[in-house]
């Protein structure tokens, strides 16, 4: 089994097609929608947690690419500016996905981008504005 958080960018021409339905029906994949919207600039954006048998997952991703969906791991879109971050820890209790972890002795704050659900709560709550969501 495999499960990954990915960001899908849809061109406008795919807006009326049941893409996610196909992933479930044809490739037997499970999904959890974290975010979905349509922007004026680039069409549709969907942040998904997608999982299933590894072989099915790979075929599903192949299908997405073939129909013209651009995709990338969510971790590439949520970024911490390491020169800006002071490791204060203001983000730690706010994150609903527990993506920030304080190392006990050094008190440094680790960001686990694979846990991030891209809710954006930390972006505006960070006093030094070190967190960026790029999509």
């Amino acid at each position, binding site marked *: 089994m495999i499960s990954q958080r990915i960001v899908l960018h849809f061109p406008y021409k795919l807006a009326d097609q049941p893409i996610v339905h196909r992933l479930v029906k044809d490739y037997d994949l499970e999904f959890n929608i974290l975010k979905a919207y349509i922007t004026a600039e680039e069409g549709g954006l969907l942040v998904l947690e997608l999982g299933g048998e590894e072989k099915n997952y790979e075929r599903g991703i192949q299908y997405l690419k073939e129909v013209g969906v651009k995709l990338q791991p969510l971790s590439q879109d949520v970024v911490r500016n390491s020169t800006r971050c002071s490791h204060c*820890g*203001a*983000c*730690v*209790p*706010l994150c609903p996905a527990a993506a920030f972890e304080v190392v*006990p002795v050094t*008190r440094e704050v680790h960001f686990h981008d694979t846990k991030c659900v891209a809710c954006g709560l930390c972006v505006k709550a960070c*006093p*030094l504005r070190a967190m960026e969501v790029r999509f």
Partner: protein
Amino acid sequence: MAKTIKEINEKIKRGEAVVVTAEEIIDIVEEKGAKKAAQQVDVVTTGTFGPMCSSGAYFNIGHSTPKIKLGGERAYLNDVPLYTGLAAVDTFIGATALPDDDPRNKTFPGEFRYGGGHVIEDLVAGKDLKLVANAYGTDCYPRRKLETWVNIRDLNEAVLFNPRNAYQNYNVAVNLGNTAIYTYMGMLKPNLGSANYCSAGQLSPLLNDPYYKTIGIGTRIFLGGGIGYVVWQGTQFNPAVQRKDNGTPCVPSGTLAVIGDLKQMSAEWLAGTSMQGYGTTLTVGIGVPIPILNEEMCTYTAVNDEELWTQIVDYGESYPQGKKGSLGEVNYAQLKSGKITVQGMAVPTGSLSSYPKAVEIAKTLKEWIEKGDFLLTEPVGFFPGPETGTTCKPLRERPLEK
């Protein structure tokens, strides 16, 4: 045997002074005892890096040709208003100043992306800033309008001057209400969903000299990455509060007013800060050296997070309404464990003050002293201690109409 600051400085000049951080002294005293440690250690360095709103800078921009008088008029640096109630080209900017057109909290919670604290950071970083001023014109200062780029290197003086920094202890903020609130202590989740604290604890300057026996007027310090000085007790100085047997206050107490040449500071240690729904501020790095004059000072500096206590305060209702009362007392070791218990509930904790940066400041100051670059100063005056009865009073309002 007691030491004097003069004797310690002689050792620093000879490169023989033993300097440790306020973190390192804990184990040394644990192992050797305070008496022996006091003989061996000469200086303990402290550090803190947190948002400190009562911070600002004054500067003299130099006279233009023809001359202009900003005093009593309007002037802006990167659209942030300057205080101009001084002589012709002297101005002051505070960390919480906002551009006139900032939306503030009109769409709640406001973002407060850029304000006085960010101007100070950009100035220190050596960026060009946009100065715009209007004036009424006088016989000696006829010019009415000024628009120019300015840079810190061209200013005659640029001085960081913070009326209240480095709080000796601070509240833990929680929210008993049922909606999220946005405070100077950060966003607080409803129904005791989070607890925020703001102190370097065992590394915090004034918690290592609880009765202000060595820190006083004239103390040379690490300030914003450069050298600064303590000039006075900070505003809201409140020494006569409840204290533990180790002398440390268990509520906010002492504060420091500090000053230093901004031109030798660094943007790494003066960071423009945005508190969502609250406003802008400046995160300031401060480190104070504490001379180990005797066993007593050594014992004070060996205080650890488990021995430092503070109060849990509801910022949903009690704090804004000025109601007294604590929801409980916790120590900094409990706060740093990631969870505290409030009203029987496990509440996750967050910190606004950076402990890793506080460690870095204490270590940097230690290096400066070890290298002989930084000598200690004898205070020229001391702060009012708890015995003076000095207190921080609330405003007593007297209505204007009878």
